[in-house]
C-alpha cells in the first residue's frame, strides 16, 4: 500500500517537476511569474491530441511535434507579450501574463470546445506488476520519460557552453551581457525549453487521466508553481525536487488522511517550508550582491 502510493505520488510528482521547471527557468532570468505557463501546458496537451487524433501520428511523433510547436508558442508569447514590457514596472508583465492565460484558454475553447476529450491511444492502459506494486504502462512512460528529460536538462545546463550561459544569465542579466552573451536569446531559450517540457507533461497527463480540456492548466499550473516555490524558485534542481516532493506528499496525504485534504496538505507543507526557509529548499537568497 505504501509503496504503491509512493509510486503514484512519484508519477504525479515528476509531472509537477516538468511543469515547475518552466516557471523556475523564466523566473530565474526575468524574476517574473509566467502565469500563462499552465495554459501552455494545456496547449501542449491539445496539440499532442490533435497530432494523434486528426493526423494519426504515432505517440512519439506527437510528443516531438507538440514539444516543438509549444516551444514556438512560448517563444512568441515572450516576444510579443513580455519583452516590450521588460523595463516597465514589475506588475505590468504579470498583468500581461494573466491576459495571455485568458487568451490561451479562450482560444482552446474556440478551437476544441469546453468539453473533456479522451486521449485516443491504446498505449498506457496495460499494467506491469512488480512485487506488491502495480505500474500502469503510462506510469512507466511518465517516470522514464520525465527522468530522461530532467537528466537531459541537467546535463545541458551543467555541461554545455550554452547551458552554462543560461545559468550565468539567470545569475545576472547585465553581467551575462558583458560576457558577450545575447541575453535575449537566453530568455527565448528558457521559454522554449520550459514550454517543450510542459508540452510533454501535458500529453502524459492527457493520457494518464484520459482527459484533455481547456482549463486543465489551471490546477496543474498552481500545483507546479507551488512545487517551484517549495524547491526554491529560480533553482532548476529545486523545481525537480519540489515537484517530486509535492506529488509524493500530496498522494500519501490523500491515501492516509483523506483525498479531500490533498491541497490542504500540500499548502501546509509549503507554508511550513517557507517559514523555515523563506527561499525554498534549494533557493538562493540573492545570488548577486551588487
Amino acid at each position, binding site marked *: 500500500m505504501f509503496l504503491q502510493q509512493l509510486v503514484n505520488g512519484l508519477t504525479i510528482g515528476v509531472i509537477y517537476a516538468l511543469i515547475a521547471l518552466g516557471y523556475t527557468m523564466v523566473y530565474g532570468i526575468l524574476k517574473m511569474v509566467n502565469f500563462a505557463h499552465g495554459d501552455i501546458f494545456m496547449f501542449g496537451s491539445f496539440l499532442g491530441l490533435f497530432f494523434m487524433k486528426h493526423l494519426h501520428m504515432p505517440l512519439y511523433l506527437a510528443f516531438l511535434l507538440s514539444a516543438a510547436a509549444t516551444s514556438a508558442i512560448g517563444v512568441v508569447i515572450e516576444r510579443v507579450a513580455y519583452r516590450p514590457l521588460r523595463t516597465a514596472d514589475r506588475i505590468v508583465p504579470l498583468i500581461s501574463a494573466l491576459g495571455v492565460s485568458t487568451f490561451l484558454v479562450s482560444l482552446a475553447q474556440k478551437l476544441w470546445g469546453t468539453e473533456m476529450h479522451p486521449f485516443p491511444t491504446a498505449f498506457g492502459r496495460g499494467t506491469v506488476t512488480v512485487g506488491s506494486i502495480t505500474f500502469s504502462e503510462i506510469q512507466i512512460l511518465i517516470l522514464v520519460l520525465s527522468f530522461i528529460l530532467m537528466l537531459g536538462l541537467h546535463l545541458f545546463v551543467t555541461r554545455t*557552453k550554452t547551458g*552554462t*550561459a543560461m*545559468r*550565468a544569465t539567470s*545569475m*545576472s542579466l*547585465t*553581467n*551575462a*551581457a*558583458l*560576457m*558577450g*552573451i*545575447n*541575453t535575449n536569446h537566453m530568455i527565448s531559450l528558457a521559454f522554449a525549453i520550459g514550454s517543450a517540457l510542459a508540452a510533454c507533461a501535458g500529453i502524459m497527463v492527457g493520457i494518464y487521466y484520459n482527459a484533455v480540456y481547456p482549463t486543465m492548466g489551471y490546477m496543474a499550473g498552481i500545483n507546479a508553481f507551488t512545487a517551484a516555490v517549495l524547491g526554491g524558485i529560480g533553482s532548476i534542481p529545486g523545481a525537480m525536487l519540489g515537484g517530486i516532493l509535492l506529488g509524493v506528499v500530496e498522494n500519501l496525504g490523500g491515501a492516509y488522511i483523506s483525498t479531500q485534504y490533498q491541497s490542504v496538505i500540500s499548502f501546509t507543507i509549503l507554508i511550513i517550508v517557507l517559514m523555515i526557509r523563506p527561499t525554498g529548499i534549494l533557493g*538562493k537568497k540573492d*545570488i*548577486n*550582491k*551588487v
Partner: protein
Amino acid sequence: MTENRVLLEINDLCVKYGAIPAVKQVNLRLYQGEIVALIGTNGSGKTTVLRTISGIVRASQGNIRFEGSEITKLEPHRIVQRGISHVPEGRGVFADLTVLENLKMGAYIRKDKAAIRQDIEQMFSLFPRLAERKNQLAGTMSGGEQQMLAIARALMARPKLLLLDEPSMGLAPLIVKEIFRAIRSVNREGVSVLLVEQNTKMALAAANRGYVMETGSIVVQGDAEELKNNAVVKTVYLGMH
C-alpha cells in the same frame, strides 16, 4: 603606445537616469596602448561612463566611437564582440559557477577551443591563486580572488580595450599591488585600459594620462605626471594639504 592611434573616442556624452543627469558633456580620448585613469569623488559619474561604453545604459546625447566606428547604439554583446571587455564595479563574478566556468564564460564569444585552453593556463600564471581554486564556486572566494577572476574572465575575450571599475575597492594593500602588477603586465601585452579608481595614487602611478570627474563633468585632464602635481588633485584626491 607611441602610435597615437585613437582607440576610444567619447564625444559630448550625456547620460540621464530618468530625468536626473549623471554624465554631462563628457569628452574623453584613449589612444591605442594607453592606460587612462578616470578618477573622481563618489557619485561623479565614472561608473556611468563605463556602463555607457558597454551599452548597458544608453546615452541621451553624444556618441562613442571605437576604432573609428560608432558603437553608441550597439547592444552590449555586440560591443564585447568589437573588442571591449568590462570588469564591473563589485566584480560581478557568477557566484554559482566555478572559477573555470567563469573563465569559459569570459571566452563566450570565441570558438577557438585550443586557444581558449591556452589562455586559461595563461590566466592561471597571471593569477596563480585562481589555478588552485579552479573548481571552487566563485561566490565562495575572497574579494581579492573574485577581483582577479573578474579581470581574468574579461581578458578571456581577448579584448583590445579593458574597462576596469574600481579594481582595488575593499582590498588589502598587498592584493591591490598584485592586481595593479597584473594590469600593467596585461597592458604591456598590448591591451589598452580605461581605469576607474578611487585609489588615485595607484591609478596615476599606473596610468599614462588621467581625467578627473566631478558631478558628471570632466574638470581636469592631463598626463598622469601633471595630474599628480595638480593642486586640485593633490588636495581632493591625494589627501595632501
